[in-house]
């Protein structure tokens, strides 16, 4: 697989073919999801309409975790196979994952204000998500902290792998420590414990988020490849001999 994609030209072609489908799926999923979420699904008997925050909060939380896991995975692959594609995907995915994490934190805080009466508590779930946010920041900062881009890629990839210990902590924190936060009710052993009227919009929104993420990811990777091409051509063209130096 990785060797199949190892040619940038091929990757660009496949990405270009995938892109419209991703956009369509994203629009469809989020559109239908929002329709179900805001119109069709009922208000919660305890929480009222504020429960509708869930349809943003939960998918973005899932995405925050999934994107980080993806970064850790491609980082490991890149380090093992010494192939830069993994670095490229990881670096491209990080800002997107950070965005999802921020959305999760903000919607969670809003929700917390309405249902727990406080924006923030230092419980295990919330703290570990905050840690995830810092890890994303650290990953991005480390990756761009070296003059040698390759060195930055490798350092960031290592950090991504180290930080992966946080993912299971986030996932299981609600089970290991009694907290204010909701325990898992959709993605758990023994089947989902949530009413279908709520499950449908949730799943639709999640699908939309995934498609949206993929679309942006392909765009970003393509832009990076194009940028490299331009830089390489410019340097090769503009410089004779020792020439000018570019910090990357």
């Amino acid at each position, binding site marked *: 697989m990785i060797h199949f994609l*190892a040619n940038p030209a091929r990757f660009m072609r496949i990405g270009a073919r995938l892109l419209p489908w991703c956009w369509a799926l994203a629009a469809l999923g989020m559109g239908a999801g929002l329709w179900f979420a805001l119109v069709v699904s009922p208000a919660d008997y305890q929480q009222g309409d504020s429960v509708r925050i869930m349809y943003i909060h939960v998918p973005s939380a899932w995405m925050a975790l999934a994107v980080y896991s993806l970064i850790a995975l491609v980082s490991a692959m890149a380090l093992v196979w010494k192939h830069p594609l993994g670095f490229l995907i990881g670096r491209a995915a990080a800002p997107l994952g950070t965005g999802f994490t921020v959305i999760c934190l903000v919607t969670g805080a809003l929700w917390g204000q309405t249902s727990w009466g406080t924006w923030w508590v230092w419980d295990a779930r919330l703290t570990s998500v905050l840690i995830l946010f810092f890890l994303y920041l650290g990953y991005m900062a480390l990756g761009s902290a070296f003059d040698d881009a390759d060195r930055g890629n490798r350092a960031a990839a290592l950090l991504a792998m180290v930080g992966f210990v946080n993912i299971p902590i986030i996932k299981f924190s609600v089970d290991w420590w009694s907290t204010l936060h909701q325990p898992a009710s959709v993605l758990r052993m023994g089947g989902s414990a949530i009413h279908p009227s709520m499950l449908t919009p949730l799943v639709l929104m999640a699908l939309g988020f995934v498609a949206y993420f993929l679309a942006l990811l392909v765009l970003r990777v393509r832009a990076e490849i194009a940028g490299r091409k331009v830089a390489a051509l410019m*340097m090769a063209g503009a410089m004779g001999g020792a020439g000018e130096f570019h910090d990357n």
Partner: protein
Amino acid sequence: MTDHRPSVGRADRLIARDIACIRGGRLLFAGLGFTLAPGGVMLLTGPNGIGKSSLLGILAGLAPPAAGSVELPTDTGRIAYLGHGDGLKPLATVAETLAFWAAVNGPGDPQARRQAIEEAMEAFALGPLAALPCRYLSAGQRRRVALGRVMAGAARLWLMDEPATALDGAGARAFDQALAGHIAAGGMAVVATHAPNALDGAEILEIARFAGTAPRFADPDTWGPSVGQDP
């Protein structure tokens, strides 16, 4: 892309194959190769900035080459590497410095280790300096300590960057003798230098011969900033 780190080869020689080096996006040299047999010395020469130090780093395995591969001789033991800097701790005394590095790199047997240290101290006239912290040393004295460290290690392959920097006449002679002794015992050495006439019997590798004719940068049709063969 294959692993470019030096591998331990089957033959009893140091083999560099088709090495290319890129620093700061600039191709320094490509297609550089040589073989060094036991008892051989290879002098690296060339103008400032051509890539002598970079090549030494690649041979040592401290940095991967952009292309090509390095094969270390069987049973090299360790590699001794001496860069432009001396790598001394300002607060450690000369004796402590040598003892520490001999414990890390030198012969395992304490008796042999002590003797190796003593020989190195004697070769570079470090005796009177033994109790001085390194930060009190003059430039040439520092270099002698760094050379003493190389000598006290049990390495068969010495990689050295302008070893005679700051040495006076006696120091330079002491180094020549130490190198001759190392060679006579079947050791090998790769030495970057601007004074290639100082050593007779040594091969000379003029790096400028392999200098990148035109600057080549990241190949836009492959992924990495790599040169030469790619999967």
